[in-house]
């Protein structure tokens, strides 16, 4: 019978100390609300009253903003409360996803170095969406407030794995800078 309770370190959830060194800080942030809105792009923006959704390598600003996930989908951070389901008048579908996604912030001069160990990010290649594969995990990566400050969302069930990955990458960055 499989009993792997000791094989896997217990999951500790979102409350955890930051990963930190002089060049880098990675920490879990709290949001009030994350809302998935699908529909024609303009209609998505209309219902949450935002002028645009951030794509790559644009920089999102403020606390209430949206990021572009697909041709017809955005994720709104700390936007208005909307009912789940189809909004016939607005022509969009809405799901509250506040519980689904973990949001982490990665900042510091080595932030991009860390991200480029998991994904292939090139600030010279624009992309319509902020969705990417990070070592096989679907994540949303975008700049926030400044060019060296990044935010990354992903499914909460992957938090332990992505955190462990980030710790391994941080170690590699320290090693790289040491040599």
């Amino acid at each position, binding site marked *: *019978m*499989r*009993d*792997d*309770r000791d094989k*896997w*370190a*217990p*999951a*500790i*959830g979102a409350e955890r100390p930051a990963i930190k060194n002089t060049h880098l800080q990675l920490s879990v942030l709290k949001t009030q609300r994350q809302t*998935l809105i*699908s*529909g*024609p792009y303009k209609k998505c923006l209309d219902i949450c009253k935002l002028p645009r959704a951030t794509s790559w390598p644009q920089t999102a600003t403020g606390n209430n903003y949206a990021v572009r996930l697909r041709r*017809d989908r955005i994720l709104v951070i700390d936007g208005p409360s909307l009912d*789940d*389901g*189809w909004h*016939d008048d607005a*022509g969009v*579908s809405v*799901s*509250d*996803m*506040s*519980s*689904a*996604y973990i949001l982490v912030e990665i900042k510091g001069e080595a932030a991009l*170095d860390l991200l*480029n*160990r998991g*994904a*292939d*990010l*090139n600030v*010279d*290649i624009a992309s319509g969406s902020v969705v990417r594969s990070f*070592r096989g995990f679907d994540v949303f990566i975008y700049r926030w407030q400044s060019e060296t400050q990044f935010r990354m969302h992903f*499914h*909460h*069930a*992957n*938090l*332990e*794995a992505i955190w*462990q*990955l980030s710790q*391994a*990458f941080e170690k*590699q960055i320290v*090693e*790289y800078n040491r*040599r």
Partner: protein
Amino acid sequence: MSGFRVQNRGLIDRHKTLSFQFDGKSCTGHPGDTLASALLANGIKIMGRSFKYHRPRGVWGAWFDDSNAIFNISLGAIQLPNCPAATTYLEDGMQARSVNTFPSARFDIKGVLDWFSPFLPAGFYYKTFMRPNWHLFEPTIRKMAGLGKLDGNIIEEYQSDQIHQSCDLLIVGAGPAGLAAALSASQKGSSVVLVDDHDIAGGSSYQQQSNIENKPASLWIRDQIAAIAGNGGRILLSTTAYGIYDHNLVALIQDSGFGHAPRLWRMRAKRILIATGAIDRQITFANNDRPGIMSAVGALEFLGRYGVLVGKKIALLSNNSHTQNTANLLREAGAEVETFDTGDNSPVAIGGKKLRALNIDGKSHSCDVILASGGLTPVVHLWRHGGGRLEWNEAIQAFIPAQATTGMRAAGAANGIYELDEALADARAAALDQPSPKVQSAYQIKALLPDINSKKRQWIDFQHDVTVKDIELAARENYSSVEHLKRYTTLGMASDQGKTSNMAGLAVMASLQNRTISEVGTTTFRPPFVPVPFELYRGVKRQQLFNPPKRLALEAEHRNVGAAMGEYGGWLRPAWYGDDDPHNTIRKEVISARTHVAIIDASPLGKIEIMGPDAEKFINFVFYNTLTTLKPGKIRYALMLSERGIVYDDAVITRVDQNRFIISCSSSHVEGVNNALEGWRQDGNDPDRIFVHDTTQNWATITLSGPKAGELLSKLDMSIDLSPDAFPHMTFRQADFLSVPARISRVSFTGDPSYEISVPTLHASALWSAIAKAGKSVQAAFIGVEALSILRAEKGYIIVGKDTDGETMPHDIGFSQPRLRKESAFVGDRALHTHAANGQNRRQLVGLMVKGNECKIVTGAHLIDQSGSKPRSIGYVTSSYDSPTLAHPIALALLENGTARIGESVAVWNQGDIRQATIASACFYDKGGGLLNA
């Protein structure tokens, strides 16, 4: 013995002395030495043995073009096999052993094999060892073969760093050409990355002690580096470009020192410039494999980089003008040098382990080293990886890059341009993607055709002991294609992958076939350019980070009550609870579920929402069952098929309102179902009228199942009427749980009344606590996935992929109606009416029973038909348990024509043992289904 070390030359740090051992002998060297240079400085010439005949071997080249000196090296607890002596930097305390020798490279007992070489020609093993059987000979041959020894120890910290990067221009090779190109391109604002496999830039300038553009080479190099860095260019040293892959992806390996895992750069370059220089070609002459016969370029490298003079009395044998200055440089360093033209006289090396002389036209010239230069050979491997073509240049007797391919250029010596100033001009033009200036090469070379009639042995592949005679034999036996030649003789299959042997082999083949080298052609150049450790590809993807499972939001809660966590469908889930004997524990959990109520974390179940005005039409097409008749608030079980009609997944589908459905698919199929839904949505539908949101991870789901499920739920105070009439089986309610929206589905995977309660994951803990607290009064038990598997099997509920296989169609598992009656098109519909789908002997889902006192049937046992001469498989057992509820073993099986055979007996076959079972309906518990509606 520092007799061969030359003062004031080389880049080594003479202030420090490093000690090491080679084949048990103590030696010293300096930081900056490679093992090869240090051994030469210690007067050691024999560094290895050849693979087949165990002939003594000295180092041929000074860098990657040596396949003779290969060591197992230990340093402290770390041991690495197959380290090339010429590219491994010396560290203090290294213990080096030549590979495949005993007791040492100098006195190797298997050296006697050379006496038998007449009986071991190319491919001899294809002609013998057949009778009575190859197995008789193979173990001995295996032991004889192989190079390095793997010690089996794992270096815990050996972990590669892997980085994605991109640049406008990647330049491979930081010799004069690469440096000049990097500066030119970076001046124009391009992002430039310059890589070099040495730990210092400068390339071939260390061979020739000449000025570059009127500056001493070291100053010129320093200035270039500073200017490149000033322009934002980056230089990666100790970094080898080992492969060019599709769409200009260059794989770079950066050395981190002995015993440390190298770094992998996946470099995406808009343009690539190959400035990898040229290596010396060997000369095919009698006894040319003797230790002490070396590449002339290699000798200058040993001198220029390591301050090592390879011999005191040197014979320089050359067919080209590049060696004009070589003799002078060696003489300046203190050697006595005699030069010889290859001409048409037949050179013969005289000596065994110790070289004594070079015979030319029968005249003996004593020497301790012969430097052989058969002409410069551009390093074009990467060019070929990148898809560039080669052309034969008669004037310089070499394959050089043909016209540029998209995004890739070659420059300098790699491009067949050997004069410094011309190479610099070529590189600067290439850097800016301008046409190269026409150059008139001053380089002179005589075509070098080997004497194929010589009676003496002339070596082509030093490591693999391939001689001219072997190639001649291969040609005579009509292994005439260059690939046949390579494979038959093993020419070029040594660990240098033909870097030293390829051209010589082609020349022999050309002579034998009376063709030109260009007509013979080359074999394929394949990555990696140099061998790279497997670790390079692994990096952090190891142990827990190798496909890590998803984690439940409630994991801490489960662990608090003693959950044994196990991996199911990509999630780490409670398998059972407690530390007692698992079988007994699981049995108790099942009984609790049947007698009272079970609490199950069902969060991984899919929750894919389909929304929009066309949602109904869409979902009715994608699923097998008719869903247009599903009313809001109701739930229906449905199957998803592939277009081949095979059951892909099963789901319960809830219609929330007119325009919104929730698909609760199997936990392991969420991604697949979601992708399939998106595919159909965008193909043939109006995607503005249908949307698919995978909200699985937004919701935590706790299932209450058992006779007291309703009672427990009622204690949670969610103000819903739980009477069976108000909230019947297969219906759905929305409610509030502590002011949070909650969903309750009355569906069952156990056969007992069950409620799936879902709340947003952030509130999962609160729900769990409330249920755990309320559960005490009804003797509720937490149960894990193992108990759930038994409960569902008792009821005959399938797990798709376990109880179905790649042939199972819905009518095989009891869902026949839509196939016959559904009035609209659906995925897989036509496939349900093919010859195979209509077949009489389809494997159908049934139950199997044995007597209560018998042991359970083995899952994976087959059901057989014994009517023929030998047993024939007619199905197999998919699930099997000792049923705690029924107190006898039960099993589910797929059986040919099974439903018609219910009540009959069937033979069950496992590894030759046969027993009998009774075929039953797949439902063992509450066959009438009355409990579900209670």
